């Protein structure tokens, strides 16, 4: 099944800050969503030219 299958079957690794605990996987998902949100705000949308008369 390869490396990916092996990776998916590993035990989750958790990190702690005092009372706060989160798995690396969940942290990566949250960071991915934040990056996606930031990119959606700043990346120019194709065909959206300022000054163009749009309805």
């Amino acid at each position, binding site marked *: 099944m390869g490396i990916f299958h092996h990776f998916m079957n590993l035990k989750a690794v958790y990190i702690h800050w005092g009372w706060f605990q989160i798995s690396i996987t969940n942290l990566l*998902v949250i960071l991915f969503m934040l990056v*996606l949100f930031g990119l*959606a*705000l700043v*990346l120019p949308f194709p065909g959206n030219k300022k000054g*163009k008369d749009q*309805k």
Partner: protein
Amino acid sequence: MSADIEKEMWTSKLRKGWQKNLPIEKLLPDTQPAYVASWIYLFGVATLAALGVIVASGLVLSFEGASWYHYSSVGHFVNSMHFWSVQFFFIFMVVHLWGKFWMAAWRGRRLLTWITGALAFVGSIATAFTGYLIQTNFDSQWISYEAKDGFNSVGIGSRFNVTNFGQMILLHVAFLPVIIGVITLIHVLLVRAKGVVPPIDAFNNELGERK
């Protein structure tokens, strides 16, 4: 049938109300305001697209059965497609939620749109949870036996028994998808009826006022 009687019929009221609030031009528009030309406005429809893949792959899984998706290559593929489309469904929905929260999307009499979106989010969590419970593997066994204590502690374990596979699979493939489908349909119709929420600093061109 006289015109007076026709006015009193619920079908007539529904038709007139629908035509007033959601004419076909609003339901199937071919133009959108300029501010919609932004990536942040795409995550709602991306969520809908992911939901479509979830339903399609889920239908295949339900027809083929657990022995197929656990032991055949194509079954593994469709099972993974169902799982990953759920992951992207939630990722897109959360980014959609963040975008709508920061643009205060409940403005302009859109409160019901916001509420139906929140209900869809909560309902989706319940649906995904029951999905984890019916994987028919050790993962689902572990999750159900951890979750039962939580549900029992709040007194609903006798009605919502997470270790009851029959109850969980029926909730996952029948009841909850119908609920999610209806809420999503209402949410989308409300978006079409009220229009896409403008940015907070957008001006109403006709009135010269902020929306």
